[in-house]
């Protein structure tokens, strides 16, 4: 059943420095890294390799001691050059120095017609072994899916409404057959639908419009309309004890390629964008790429914040840091560590969801903003009401949910819908919050409490 969802609530953050639709493939980072911290469910990461080992794309590098059958594999072939550990020897990064030419581990190859006969067990075994499995993220909790589960449905959001987000129709152009094959494989895992959700407002790329065997839903509205969690809420909501799997379109394509080509191909097109990037456009590279080459001679100034992902849900990384597993975007904004005289009352055109005294950004909704990382105020007690609800297009009360988490009230957390949201769904609340709370961090604390209860 295909549905059309029109959302009204939300807020588009219009930033300067959008990526031009041009792909550069001559910039090749030397190193690539896997970061265990990208996976929320991974509590006890263990290494399958040591420094000096040679790996191929698809060779196991990392696993979680609690589910060792899921391999986290190398995105490129090369040599393991460094294992970066933090406090208590926690593994932070496993760095691979890439070969000039990527060589691949080989896996079973199928034709499109063979795929029909493929059993769930065989598909699952190949996916877990090759390294594509972590692309499947389970709701609730936003963790890597448990292979023992049968989800009630699977969701793929084919568009991203975050600030400066890449256009997946563009980054995946020409990969129709892999996307289709990926959907065909995923169908084996659920008794329900594979939902492919497309942007109801703009023209849909042929990559997604030609998909077969999936139910295609149109979703339109301001951000967070592109968030898969919001879409699930309106199309097939999660109740207690129910499980839904979600993937990004990139993950679906990787799965399709694994079965049609017999290789784990982690190549991808990433957007390097933001107001401080001289020439924002796309780069063809591999998962976990080091960003230094993309930013060399490409920054307007030095005092910047480099973010793996977008400015709402991303993570600050160093100028020679690595793009996260689930990210296909690098954002660069000015660092905001400065004082401002009477900044709390000075009239300003800075972007704000609010229209309080002296905030004029609502008058020019089309303006592209340059925003830095300054918090624009101090943390205060919750005072204002009703704002979170205005940017959360769900039948859910974020303020009450956050308060329930702070009070560690398990019953209320469940009742108020903690199973339906992960960080990205409430990221806008954190942005608009007058009292400057870390909403996403609080939410993750709550999710961890519920998960372990």
């Amino acid at each position, binding site marked *: 059943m295909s549905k059309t969802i029109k959302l009204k609530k939300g807020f588009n*953050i219009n930033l300067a420095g959008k990526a031009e639709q041009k792909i550069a493939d001559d910039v090749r980072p030397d190193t690539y890294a896997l970061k265990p911290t990208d996976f929320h469910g991974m509590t006890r990461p263990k290494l399958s390799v040591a420094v000096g080992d040679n790996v191929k794309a698809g060779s196991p590098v990392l696993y979680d001691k609690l589910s060792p059958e899921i391999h986290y594999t190398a995105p490129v072939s090369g040599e393991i050059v460094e294992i970066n550990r933090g406090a208590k020897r926690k593994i932070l990064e496993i760095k691979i120095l890439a070969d000039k030419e990527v060589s691949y581990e080989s896996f079973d190859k199928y034709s499109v017609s063979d795929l029909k006969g493929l059993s769930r067990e065989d598909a699952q075994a190949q996916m877990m072994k090759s390294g594509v499995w972590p692309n499947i993220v389970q709701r609730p909790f936003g963790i890597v899916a448990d292979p023992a589960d049968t989800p009630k449905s699977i969701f793929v959001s084919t568009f991203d409404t975050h600030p400066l987000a890449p256009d997946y129709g563009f980054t995946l152009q020409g990969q129709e057959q892999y996307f289709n094959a990926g959907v065909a494989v995923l169908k084996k895992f659920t008794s329900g639908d594979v939902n492919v959700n497309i942007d109801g407002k703009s023209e849909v790329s042929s990559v997604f419009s030609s998909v077969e065997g999936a139910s295609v839903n149109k979703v339109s509205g301001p951000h967070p309309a592109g968030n898969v969690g919001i879409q699930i809420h309106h199309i097939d909501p999660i*109740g207690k004890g*129910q499980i839904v799997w979600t993937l990004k379109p990139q993950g679906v394509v990787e799965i399709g390629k694994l079965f049609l080509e017999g290789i784990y191909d982690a190549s991808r097109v990433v957007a390097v964008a933001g107001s401080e990037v001289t020439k924002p456009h796309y780069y063809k590279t591999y998962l976990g790429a080091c960003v230094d080459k993309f930013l060399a001679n490409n920054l307007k100034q030095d005092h910047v*914040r480099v973010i793996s992902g977008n*400015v*709402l*849900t*991303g993570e*600050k990384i160093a100028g020679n840091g690595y793009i996260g597993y689930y990210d296909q975007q690098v954002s660069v*904004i000015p*660092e*905001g*560590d*400065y*004082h401002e*005289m*009477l*900044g*709390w*009352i000075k009239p*300003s055109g*800075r*972007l*704000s969801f*609010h*229209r*309080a*005294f*002296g*905030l004029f*950004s609502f008058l020019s909704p089309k303006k592209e903003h340059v925003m830095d*990382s*300054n*918090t*624009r*105020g*101090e*943390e*205060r*007690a*919750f*005072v*204002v*009401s*009703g704002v979170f*609800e205005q940017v959360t297009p769900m*039948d859910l*009360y974020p303020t*009450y949910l956050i308060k329930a988490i702070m009070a560690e009230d398990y019953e209320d957390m469940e*009742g*108020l819908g903690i199973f339906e949201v992960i*960080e990205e769904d409430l*990221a806008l609340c*954190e*942005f608009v919050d*007058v*009292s400057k709370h*870390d909403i*996403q*961090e609080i939410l993750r604390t709550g999710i961890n409490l519920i998960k372990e209860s």
Partner: protein
Amino acid sequence: MKFLREQLDKQKPLFEKGGKFEKFYYLFEANETFLFSPDSTAGAKGVQIRDAVDLKRLMMTVVIALLPCLLFGIWNSGHQSFVATGKSGDFLAEFLLGAQLVLPIVIVAYAAGGLVEVVFAIIRKHPINEGFLVTGMLIPLTLPSTIPLWQVAIATIFAVVIAKEAFGGTGMNILNVALTARAFLYFAYPQQIAGDKVWTYIGDGATVDGYSGATPLGIAAGATDPKTWVEGTTVIQALGSTTEKWADGLYSSWNLFFGAYPGSIGSTSVIMVGIGALILIATGVGSWKTIVSCFAGGWVMGLILNQFGSNEFTQIPPHYHLIMGGFAFGAVFMATDPVSSAQTELGKWIYGFLIGVITVIIRVLNPGYPEGIMLAILFMNVFAPLIDFYVVGANKKRRLRRATV
């Protein structure tokens, strides 16, 4: 500017952990963040950019919305004094007299409340909250200009300590702080805040012939006492006849709307409250739902009483309720206090509507308290969490139902 910043940076270590004045950190923080917005940046994970708004700006928006009421109240306090004593004076003279009466009250309210805030911030180690910018302005506007200053100080201290800090500080309070201050004075020192004699500053002068300091609500409440009420006069006629000898048209519906009549400093003028309401609604700082539903509730209840009237007060046209006394001021500035109001959108409709209804019930059916809005809002403050409980409970039930089908 740079000098100031350098001085602050130099002093800061003294107030930080381990510094000599560690205890006074939040006092320092309040001053520092007043001069300069902080240089803190977003954390490594989560949002990397933040909305340009902060609590200080939001609270200042409310203070700005209150300014028309304050300025009008200053003029009106002087003006009423001139009218009552029969003196003639130009606008400036009236305004200056009003300023003499009103500004000390404002200063005392800010000073007393600010002191409590600072003391609690130091003891409790929490930031000094900007909410007091608003409370310190609201308290004077709800009082008569003749109120003794020591009472303003006591009431403010009482309200901040009992209504706010006792509950854990800003954001945790159940009752509206400014109204608690007023209610405290109302019950503790009724001579200075209720009755006919308190609303207008007379000074050394003598009142004009036939002068009565009764407020319109006081006159209207007289209708509930059959012994003193002249049978057959409507409340509107009474409002006219009481004042015609010394200030003709003082309580005409136009003047009640305009606001040049005796009453609390800031709450008499519906026009000025209306300007404030426009600012609050346009900026989204005050909930239009609460304001609209509050007016609707008052009007509807007035209409209902018209049908079942037993005395002349019940027969008053319902819109009179909205322009007399502090109804408009309460609906716009007190009911919309985001902390003590209902917090769900549906809850705000219910909460506002009931405030309107209860205000009119108190005014008409319980003439012991001529001004009902204060008690109605405090009463609904107490019930707001209950309203939210059911609104949020309905959301939980919807979710539960979905899980079981």
